[in-house]
């Protein structure tokens, strides 16, 4: 029973733990911490490959001030994110969004991983189900005779 369901239970545990780590609420954050988290999500509009948090470009400095102003005004992270996407487009985000076509970027690796795990489970099961043959005395005699002839 355990041999049959063990791999599935292990796979399920890994998925549950991964989801718990990713989705577990992190509690209330300070304005500075929330602002910094958002700053790391946005790309500096006038530089190459730097986040707003890491850039000292004037526009990045202005965005940092604007994010803090929006948080103090009571806007949620999602509202702030959407305001910037509405103005700058999705290219303002350093990481793809988890919706629309961008969702595939997140889902595909999980699907491929699950398929790979399923393939391994099937391969192990097939290997287990195959009959394990043992050499009979007649077989051993045949081998010894062949070796003796050689």
């Amino acid at each position, binding site marked *: 029973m355990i041999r049959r369901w063990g791999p599935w239970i292990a796979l399920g545990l890994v998925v549950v733990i991964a989801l718990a780590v990713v989705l577990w609420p992190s509690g209330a954050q300070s304005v500075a911490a929330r602002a910094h988290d958002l700053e790391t999500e946005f790309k500096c*509009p006038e530089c190459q490959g730097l986040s707003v948090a890491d850039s000292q470009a004037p526009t990045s400095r202005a965005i940092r001030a604007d994010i803090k102003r929006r948080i103090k005004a009571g806007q949620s992270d999602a509202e702030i994110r959407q305001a910037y996407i509405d103005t*700058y487009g999705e290219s303002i985000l350093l990481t793809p969004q988890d919706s629309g076509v961008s969702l595939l970027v997140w889902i595909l690796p999980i699907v491929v991983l699950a398929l790979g795990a399923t393939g391994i489970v099937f391969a192990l099961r097939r290997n287990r189900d195959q009959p394990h043959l043992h050499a009979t005395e007649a077989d051993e005699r045949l081998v010894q005779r062949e070796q003796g002839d050689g």
Partner: protein
Amino acid sequence: MKHPARIAALAVALVVIVFGVVLALNVGNDPQEDARQSHLVGKAAPAFDLPNLAGGRITLADVAGKSAIVNFWNSWCTPCREEEPSLQRFYAAHKDDPDFTMIGIVRQDETGDVKAYVNKNGIEWKVALDPGSVAALDFGTRGQPETYAISPSGVVAAAKYGPMSSKELELFLAAARQTA
């Protein structure tokens, strides 16, 4: 399940096909291109209320009912200086048009430097100061110069990152006039 290996191979093939179709459908979407174009075109222009050089205010309401060219610039930006003769020619050609107005919004600059630049170059159009870059961010600017055409109804008709030629400014004005 008679042929698990075949089913797994089929599933992998299916995923690859879906991925391929999605890639094919999105192959024309250049992320760099997305970063170069304004997402405000076709939308209502962001409201602004900024101080001008004379101590008064300039607001979006001031341009209502007119075809407006809004140009973000500052005195230390080299491309802005290169663009300035085109702006001068364009403004001279249209300053008497009753349905036209032009505003220069200055971002990231000192008021004294802006005044000196305006006086030295004889800039006649309205100049607003945006010290906190609030208007610049609302317009989604990525630097300067950047130019926006706003229709009489307050819709962004056209936008460009980078210096404009006189011909491009004419096209922007035509777009503003044609946009409802």
